[in-house]
């Protein structure tokens, strides 16, 4: 059961071999048993989850169910869910019960999926290791000394440890893909604008994009079918015809042109990651794909550009956390200025403060042109690089992360080293392109390695197809962390 795919769970439910209440109960019990150690969830609410499960059972009984009705899903704690504590991993929102549902939460609710709980994350999604969470670090189920990656580390851990069949994540510079890679699961960040951002607590609005995290490409396709859609509440949401992401899954990949950016295969990638990625590419060659070297000359600027633009937007997005209307407020303050200063000093952690400071600085009078405006120009150049590359290939592949999961505490005091975790993922984010990570083996200390697949705009179906064909030929995605297999 724990290793069943979404389709398998769907069959069990529709054939009434198990009820959603039972299924949900089983996952809840597993979370109760394992979460104290893994710390993947910030909030669970058994009553709420089981209520939803009962509703799902009713939908199934009365023939109103969809394919995913009754299947539990874990929600990253960045999504507002009505009546749920929604913390975004921060002390600032440690008392915030959301009075409304994010569009993504509502979408899953409407198809009858069951919210299992809210997963841990880096504070306000700022981090690559889940160590910036006010609620403490999450452990990597493959090696509990290691980080799960971030910022969607709780979701990645939950799926990898089989605490949930699937989870939601959000990705600003790699926050779905990098933890998926580090935890050995599959995750996709769709084209910017495909999934509504309404109710998803904003980090960097022009980059934030929600996506599913699950065990296989097929599961991702099923979840994406629910998440993608125009939302009139989000002005950056795209109006497109509805697409079935499962439709092309089985297509053969012979003749698929895979672009290999020479910049991604240069120095910086550790050898264990490199061998796993090379092996995956060899598998694709066996499946009939062809390879072409492409160049993304400006991608080396992606991290610095990202660390100007994302903090700039964040510094403004996080201004609403002022202690006036909701969230944490300092207990004592002398005046208004003091209320703001103390509330924010107490409510935000160091990494969030660091990014607010950077963002405030790059937007300041006299620095705006040199940093923010310059970064915007480079962002366009980075997108241009991809445009040219996609003239020669269908998909771009490379490593998701330059290394396997590092140890908890290892990079905490070295923000630059931490920021370089996103070296391969942030370029696609800046270009608004879809990107995904699938497990392709193990590196040092038996920690998972992810293959990064970047598609052209709206080519999610093609990416999922390529990933699915690989997963038909291999079984990396089916492996469960040894200690979790009980």
């Amino acid at each position, binding site marked *: 059961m724990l290793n069943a795919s979404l389709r398998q769970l769907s069959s069990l439910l529709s054939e009434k071999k198990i009820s959603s209440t039972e299924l949900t109960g089983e996952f809840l019990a597993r979370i109760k048993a394992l979460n104290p150690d893994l710390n993947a969830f910030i909030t669970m609410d058994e009553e709420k989850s089981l209520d939803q499960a009962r509703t799902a059972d009713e939908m199934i009984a009365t023939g109103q169910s969809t394919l995913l009705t009754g299947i539990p899903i874990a929600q990253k704690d960045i999504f507002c869910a009505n009546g749920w504590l929604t913390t975004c991993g921060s002390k600032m929102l440690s008392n*915030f019960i959301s009075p409304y549902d994010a569009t993504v939460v509502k979408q899953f609710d409407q198809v009858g999926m069951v919210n299992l709980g809210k997963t841990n994350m880096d504070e306000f999604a700022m981090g690559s290791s889940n160590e910036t969470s006010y609620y403490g670090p999450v452990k990597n189920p493959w090696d509990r000394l290691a980080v799960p990656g971030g910022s969607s580390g709780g979701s990645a851990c939950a799926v990898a440890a089989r605490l949930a069949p699937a989870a939601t994540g959000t990705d600003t510079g790699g926050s779905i893909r990098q933890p998926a890679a580090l935890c050995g699961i599959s995750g996709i960040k769709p084209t910017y604008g495909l999934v509504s951002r309404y109710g998803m607590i904003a980090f960097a609005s022009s980059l934030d994009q929600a996506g599913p995290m699950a065990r296989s490409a097929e599961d991702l396709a099923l979840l994406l079918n629910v998440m993608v859609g125009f939302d009139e509440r989000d002005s950056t949401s795209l109006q497109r015809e509805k697409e079935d992401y499962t439709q092309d899954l089985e297509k053969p990949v012979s003749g698929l042109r895979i672009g290999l950016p020479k910049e991604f295969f240069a120095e910086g990638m550790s050898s264990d990651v490199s061998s796993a990625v090379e092996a995956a590419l060899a598998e694709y060659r066996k499946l009939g794909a062809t390879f072409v070297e492409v160049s993304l000359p400006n991608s080396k600027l992606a991290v610095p550009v990202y660390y100007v633009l994302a903090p700039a937007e964040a510094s403004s997005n996080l201004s609403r956390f002022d202690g006036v209307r909701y969230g944490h407020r300092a207990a004592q303050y002398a005046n208004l200025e003091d209320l703001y200063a103390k509330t924010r000093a107490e409510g935000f952690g160091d990494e969030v403060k660091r990014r607010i400071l950077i963002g405030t600085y790059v937007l300041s009078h006299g620095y705006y042109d040199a940093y923010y405006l310059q970064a915007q120009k480079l962002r366009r150049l980075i997108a241009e690089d991809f445009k040219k590359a996609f003239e020669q290939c269908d998909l771009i592949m490379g490593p998701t992360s330059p290394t396997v999961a590092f140890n908890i505490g290892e990079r905490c005091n070295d923000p630059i080293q931490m920021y370089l975790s996103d070296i391969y993922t942030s370029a696609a984010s800046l270009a608004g392109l879809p990107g995904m990570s699938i497990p392709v083996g193990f590196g040092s200390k038996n920690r998972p390695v992810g293959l990064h697949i970047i598609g052209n705009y709206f080519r999610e179906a093609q990416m999922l197809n390529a990933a699915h064909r690989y997963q038909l030929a291999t079984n990396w995605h089916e492996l469960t962390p040894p200690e979790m297999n009980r």
Partner: protein
Amino acid sequence: MQWETVIGLEIHVQLLTRSKIFSGASVAYGARPNSQACAVDIALPGVLPVLNRQVVEYAIRFGLAINATINSPSIFARKNYFYPDLPKGYQISQLAHPIVEGGHVTIRTGDKEKTIHLTRAHLEEDAGKSTHEGFHDKTGIDLNRAGTGLLEIVSEPEMRSSAEAVAYARVLHSLVRWIGICDGNMQEGSFRCDANVSVRPAGSDVLGTRCEIKNLNSFRFLERAIDYEVARQIDILESGGSIVQQTRLYDADRDETRTMRSKEDAHDYRYFPDPDLLPVVIPQEWIKQIREKLPELPEDRHNRYIRDFSLSAYDANILTAARELADYFEQTVKFLPEQIKLCANWIIGEVSGRLNKEGLEIDQCPVSPEQLAGLLLRITDGTVSGKIAKDVFDSMWQSNDNSADTIIDAKNLRQISDNSEIEKWVNEVLAANQQQVADYRAGKEKAFNSLVGQVMKMSRGKANPVQVNTLLKKHLIE
């Protein structure tokens, strides 16, 4: 030294929409605090703004009315600062690429006409309100107003006196109501002025250091605040001081401006394009549709009244101050096309005077254009004198559905034009006033007026004054 005053105005116009600029909450005035603030307005985590199409249309309407450029795309930007009544910690406004750029209006002071150029007009959201009343040691926040759509209209510094500034503000006030984008209610804050004021030696072409006076919510305050500020600046300069760039607040109770904050404490607003909102692209076709629906503008009507109706610029100016007034005038003229000047005089005089006195707007006028024309017709055909007509008008005002004829008949107010009857009164008056007759014959013209008055009184105002004059003269010469 001779000083020249330089004034530019920034006017915040609250747009007449049902819902807010970026949310669906109502903008109705006077609701219970915070009852009209939705998730977006109170800036809950995760909410996003969605632009209200109507505000864009209103801005375009304004731009077309002042012959400005409509920018496409136009960009929304975030203006970042912390304040309790600013829930997001930033205001969504426009900096580069405002929706309206350039344009001009004509203002009139005395018989001087002047063109004032506009710099720009941009869309933005209003903040909420902080209130200190009724909260011991605390501040109350009302976010009902937060997110209300505003058009901020910025002029070039082309006004040279408080009178010009007021004239400009009045033209805009009239225009935004005329084109239906603002209710113009200054008490409720629908039309708010900030004035940038500086002085410089007459003849200089360098601008002096300016002060911005905030929160001028009546034309009178605008005028007084500028006058005070100009005098203050000249005083400082003449006593050898220099002006410090400041934002100042006008205190109406004490009739003075005082420092709110100086340049050193000015915020760095860290403007940047709002990533939650796409650039606003305005198709030419839409602009065309809006242009076609635009009513005839006050300036065009003003010129037409002078050209086609031979009205003075003064009269035309007053009649085009509000669209409803101009409509009222034209409807009256439709019933009495031969007597345009008489219509204008009565509307500017009697009608407006009475409305003012009773605090009514022209669209609440109890006397309809048709009723008014009916009355004026009776003046022109000699049925009643102008003086009696005022009494009839008064009755009409009280009993709003009566025609002039009904009132004239019911009160027996018809003018008496029967020569023999008038002659009787003339003779009686002459007989009773030998002294004045003698005075008149000795060359004292004044005596004549007194005699006319007495005849009119005797007729209870109904005698035809022209005939009274003629008959009196005839008898006095005899």
